[in-house]
């Protein structure tokens, strides 16, 4: 199953933010969106997650139109981590992650267990009882990541699940960037479809099964990182002269600027 964008266009206040986009985000696959600022990555995420209605075209989640889904069932299938969080109330980390359990509500004890496990996965167990408002940017982002992980922690009876992350690694140090890639890989191995926006092309090359390059509201290239990442493309899309070689350990494309 999949999230499918069928010929989507988004037109807001005289601007074409997205033009004729066709994209399929498959379950069990890591799809990574890259592109320069203003390429339409966040707009595409908003349309794919139902936050914005496309001007034309439609979005199907597991073959059913997004707007047709029951709210709670949809929340069990699709978890979304936004770029910025506006939470400024003093919840503890456990309470924030517990909010991710709202859609499935499997009972207090089970919610507690999921919360603790999700916090451990993002290396934030030590934050459990700390107040969100007193955490550093990276700690906050890890807690939010744990929240969306908790939302799709258990498989759902309603179908394949998807996790959408908008620049999850932006506030992370090197080790937590690596941790995020590991989490994403593990989830996709379990059958969860992952869609994320990344800015670091090398990070994208290392974890993407399907790399989607956006530019000016259209999809410029799409496929495995090996095929997509060429010097020509990087120069055209990002306007940067880069050398592309192979990573000595992981044997994935390595972009050197």
């Amino acid at each position: 199953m999949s999230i499918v964008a069928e010929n989507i266009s988004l037109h807001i206040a005289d601007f074409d933010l997205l033009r004729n986009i066709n994209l399929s985000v498959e379950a069990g696959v890591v799809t990574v969106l890259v592109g320069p600022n203003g390429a339409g990555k966040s707009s595409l995420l908003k349309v794919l997650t139902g936050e914005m209605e496309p001007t034309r075209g439609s979005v199907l989640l597991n073959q059913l139109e997004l707007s047709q889904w029951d709210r709670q069932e949809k929340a069990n299938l699709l978890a979304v981590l936004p770029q910025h969080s506006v939470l400024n109330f003093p919840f503890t980390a456990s309470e924030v992650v517990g909010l991710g359990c709202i859609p499935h509500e499997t009972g207090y004890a089970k919610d507690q267990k999921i919360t603790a496990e999700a916090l451990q996965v993002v290396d934030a167990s030590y934050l459990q009882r700390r107040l969100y408002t007193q955490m550093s940017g990276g700690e906050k982002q890890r807690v939010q990541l744990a929240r969306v992980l908790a939302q799709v922690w258990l498989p759902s009876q309603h179908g394949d699940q998807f996790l959408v992350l908008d620049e999850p690694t932006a506030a992370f140090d090197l080790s937590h960037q690596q941790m995020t890639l590991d989490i994403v890989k593990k989830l996709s191995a379990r059958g969860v479809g992952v869609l994320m926006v990344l800015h670091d092309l090398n990070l994208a090359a290392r974890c993407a099964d399907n790399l989607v390059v956006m530019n000016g509201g259209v999809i410029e290239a799409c496929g495995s990182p090996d095929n997509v990442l060429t010097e020509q493309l990087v120069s055209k899309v990002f306007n940067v002269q880069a050398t592309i070689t192979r990573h000595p350990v992981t044997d994935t494309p390595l972009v050197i600027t």
Partner: protein
Amino acid sequence: MRYLSATALIWILAAVLPVVAIVSLSLGTVSIPFQKIIETLVYAFSGNAEYSQINSIILDIRLPRLILVLLVGAVLASLGAVMQGLFRNPLADPSLIGVSGGASVGASIVIVFAGGAMLPPLAGLSLLAFGAFIGGVISTLIVYRVATSSLGTSVTTMLLAGIAIGAIAGAINSLLSYFSDNQMLRQISVWQMGNLGGANWLKVTIMGSISVVLLALLPSQAKALNALLLGESEARHLGIHVQKIKRKLIFLTALGVGASVALAGLIGFVGLVIPHMIRLLIGPDHRWLLPASALAGASLLIVADSIARVVVLPAELPTGILTALLGAPIFVALLHRQREEL
């Protein structure tokens, strides 16, 4: 870190409330010993109270007032918590959506154009109460309409529209005051200070029914309010029907605050400060914040009202003056402690 668990605080508040209530019943021009109060209440509830002057003071004067005060305090404080959650702003209070401004215009219009309380009461309620309630509901509707478009209700626009409506209401109030005589002026300003005198069992019944509606509908919104603190789109992704929740909560707030203002005048501070204080103690989880705020709001208003009744015997002060005098120092102390921790 928090020092107090939510359940512990709720038990403490639940234990404090009856103590405060009985002390309040005993205080007044005639002070009545606790034992006599409990005796009278037990007899009254078992349905065989005899008539005596003391019984009459307790059952006809002090008890209805106590219950009205309790309900108004609980409703204002819990709806304050609801508004702060909905607006994601700890400085929001129930008057933000225009209820209080509209209600005071409604009250002033009745006082100036209809002679206020001089008019024969309608079914036991003064015309003033009707005017205030209608004024409050109308201004909330205006604020809600202004902030609602095809994209849903914007809480930011609502906040600003509430301020604008508040300003217009203030101007109309000043205009009405300018054209009123001394007697009317005094009535308007006393009403605006909030007064719980003149409570009767009819008022208690009205406020009680509204409280029952709120009690039935608010707890089920606690989780949605928690999710809303993350942001509206985050709440939507958690399966919450955000627009429906907003409509419901704004309607309930207009109803609850409208009724409180109509029956008790403007009582400031309770709705703003009580939820804030409770949040400092046990955190923002609305499943505990709403009941704890209700209990604390009830206790605070009972204490404030008791002091208002006895401090200048045989006269009494408007209760609204006392809520701020009592609540503000506690609030400042809590803020101070919180700053030291950071």
